[in-house]
């Protein structure tokens, strides 16, 4: 699985031999690969007008392009804000709740993200084909897809340590601009142009996986909530800045502490482990039917509703497993 940003074909359909060769080397003679473009076909075409574009079939004959539009940017942030508003709105009656939920579109975004990640995984696992994922800049929906696909495909990404490694690799080092994307969150009126909850969407998708495969992830919901918190505001330097370069310039490694170091301390670690975990060597294929995708209550109702009874249930699960 590869990731990149969009090719700069532009309105004059420029070609780049090196790019074609690079992609060519990925595939053997006669093999084919898939390009998953996270923009709609139309949006991708329009990108040419501003210097971007798509890989023309003629230049990349072994690659088949699939479009799977995933929401990002302002619309995604709006979706998030609307959802949080809806969750906080105590005046909604039951007979309007679901349509209100639907109008936020958040769950549709979760479904789309999971579906696309599964598609990428399917290409690799079932079709045994290589996959290139890109959107526009390769820093948002691209990372969402590649990271999620790895959780689906690779059992080592489902361990506590492996998942942290995945985050480092596919989000942090890959250059997701955390500083811009995770600026003010849903309550702010600032409506910053660059803010968008891609990382939260990723965490939500991972949570959906944990619900559908309760034994297959080594980490608990608590870890996901902690990651969400720290992406927006943190005592640690892990999610600072927008790129490795910036982190270097700011001397983040010298001046701050790492979140991973904290999480992995033996005393802390326990909180983040899933008592039901048991290594599952297989690929986990989630159902993306609407019935299978649920609102992440643990996050969206975190401050609204006591999780006491669920916490007690988890404590009981822990007790049963440890007793054994």
């Amino acid at each position, binding site marked *: 699985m590869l990731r990149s940003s969009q090719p700069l074909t532009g309105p004059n359909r420029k070609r780049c031999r090196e790019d074609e060769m690079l992609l060519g080397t990925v595939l053997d003679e006669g093999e084919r690969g898939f390009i998953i473009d996270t923009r709609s076909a139309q949006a991708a075409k329009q990108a040419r007008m501003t210097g971007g574009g798509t890989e023309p079939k003629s230049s990349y004959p072994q690659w088949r392009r699939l479009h799977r539009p995933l929401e990002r940017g302002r619309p995604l942030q709006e979706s998030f804000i609307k959802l949080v508003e809806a969750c906080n709105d105590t005046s909604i009656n039951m007979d309007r709740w679901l349509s209100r939920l639907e109008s936020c579109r958040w769950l549709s975004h979760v479904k789309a993200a999971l579906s696309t990640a599964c598609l990428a995984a399917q290409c690799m696992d079932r079709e045994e084909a290589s996959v290139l994922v890109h959107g526009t800049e390769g820093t948002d929906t691209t990372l969402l897809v590649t990271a999620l696909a790895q959780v689906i495909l690779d059992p080592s990404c489902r361990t506590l340590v492996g998942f942290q490694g995945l985050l480092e690799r596919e989000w942090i080092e890959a250059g997701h601009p955390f500083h811009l994307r995770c600026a003010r969150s849903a309550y702010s009126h600032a409506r910053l142009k660059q803010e968008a909850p891609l990382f939260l969407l990723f965490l939500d998708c991972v949570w959906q996986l944990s619900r559908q495969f309760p034994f297959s992830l080594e980490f608990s919901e608590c870890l996901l909530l902690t990651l969400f918190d720290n992406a927006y505001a943190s005592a640690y330097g892990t999610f600072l800045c927008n790129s490795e370069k910036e982190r270097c310039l700011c001397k983040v490694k010298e001046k701050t502490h790492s979140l991973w170091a904290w999480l992995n301390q033996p005393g802390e670690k326990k909180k983040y482990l899933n008592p039901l975990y048991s290594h599952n060597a297989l690929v986990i294929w989630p159902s993306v039917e609407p019935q299978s995708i649920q609102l992440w209550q643990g996050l969206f109702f975190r401050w609204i509703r006591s999780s006491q009874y669920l916490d*007690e249930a988890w404590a009981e699960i822990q007790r049963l497993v440890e007793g054994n």
Partner: protein
Amino acid sequence: VENVRLLDRLSSRKAALGTLYLTATHVIFVENGSETRKETWVLHSQISSIEKQATTATGCPLLIRCKNFQIIQLVIPQERDCHDVYISLIRLARPVKYEELYCFSFNPKLDKEEREQGWKLVNLHEEYNRMGIPNNYWQISDVNRDYGVCDSYPTEVYVPKSATAHIIVGSSKFRSRRRFPALSYYCKDNNASICRSSQPLSGFSARCLEDEQMLQAIRKANPGSDFIYVVDTRPKLNAMANRAAGKGYENEDNYSNIKFQFIGIENIHVMRNSLQKMLEVCELKSPSMSDFLWGLENSGWLKHIKAIMDAGIFIAKAVAEEGVSVLVHCSDGWDRTAQVCSVASLLLDPYYRTMKGFMVLIEKDWLSFGHKFNHRYGNLDGDPKEISPVIDQFIECVWQLMEQFPCAFEFNERFLIHIQHHIYSCQFGNFLCNSQKERRELKIQERTYSLWAHMWKNRADYLNPLYRSDHSQTQGTLRPQMAPCNFLYKFWSGMYNRFEKGLHPRQSVTDYLMAVKEETQQLEEELEVLGERLANLQKSQLTDNKVKTKQQDGIKQLGLSTSNNSLANTPQEYSNDLKSFPSRSPSQGDEEDSALILTQDNLKSSDPDLSANSDQESGVEDLSCRSPSGGGCLPSEDSGKDSDEAVFLA
């Protein structure tokens, strides 16, 4: 009929070829050719509707929809045969006499005494004793001993001490169907009670002294409060409309010391339509999130569930927190009243959250108080307007509570699903007829078997591993969160998509934890035994001065295979937008598919399926209903077009 195809409803490509059989009690599809014969059994009683669809090149499709939400799609090669099957099924699914039902031929091979014992498992007399009755305030009355006062009530009713036979009879004449106020639940901690009845025949101005005295008697039976609530579970408009028909509701002016309250729960027709709409959403092929949420909201189903729950919460609060007695009624007092009283009881009393207690609750508030099982669930062919998912809604309320309070119930989801299944299956005699009177006349207990005994025998399958009777969550009153709580009501895909394997987690956490619990218990027991042995050894060492090394018996190795990792699941179809694209691919060949002879042992965990019992008479080996989801290994493929806009994987 041979060469019939059983389609996987979700992926029309996966079709099993086999032979279709119709027996007196079942429809059976037996798959050809596999090493193990895969059988799908459906009880006629379960059939809700049969749809003959347009003949295609491949044959004549027949769609069978079941009351337990299973959907069977068959394709019969010859139109003539299809028509015959269709006509036969229509007749078989609409029995005219009770004796046609499966429970009268079902034979689990128990002797007469075992059968009798089975029926004695649940005893209402004991239950009222447990509540603390009879006592200073409440007594048992035999006024209805021959069903002479009310034929839909039980022979033994519990009434306030000060309610004489005269008052009871008088009140019954002023109540719809003569269903006078009687005790459903008594809280001995504070003497508050839940009573139930039907609507008074008050019209616009009629009064009845005895009925007013009856309510006073209820009030007096609770010295801790100077008034009672009267809760009408109908929407105000409906109740008012009833007045024009000479019925209606209690006027606070006429009945001293009552506080009247409407809690609008819609009627059986609205509920029937609501379920219908929801099932239509479930049948959508690859719906978008939007389609699903809109469709679900449109059906109103969760709104109704919440209304029932809210009513139960109100009553439980009145009893537990205010210490005030409540009289509940709707129109006839056998639908919404039953739902609301049983939800309230469940919230109030942890006993009803145990397996036995739940069986008792259903016996009490549904069976003894004359809920019309036959009419509502169509044991026999009857008026389609009487059909309504009343008890289904109650069962769902219980599930919703289980989701909110995972440690509070002794039983698990499978328990609820099986009960629902058997309410419609008529395999056992518990849920036949419309009243206790009818069941006794039909001699149900002598001619059929009790579901409760059967489930009790298999209770290990129904336990909730998180339940501990000493846990704080399991004790006292359950207090579900009030607002905001809309989001707490979830779509119950375990029930309404029960047979769609692809939708559910591949592995049951419940079963895993039960296995862990059992293993821990066994290990602890062994530890004890070994500890004793050690102690004895040490003792004998001291006395005899002999040193013997004993070879320890092999400790049972309970290999706990936690994740059945052999259960690889299959990717579903992750593309969207293509009309002919079936959305879900069936589960890959896994344990369920390979264990194709459906004995009881094989039907475990994620397939919440059924009682398998041999029926000698019909000469068939195993009776279990089976999901038709075929075992396919590959994601559905579509012949797609290759284009720049290609949106799927071919």
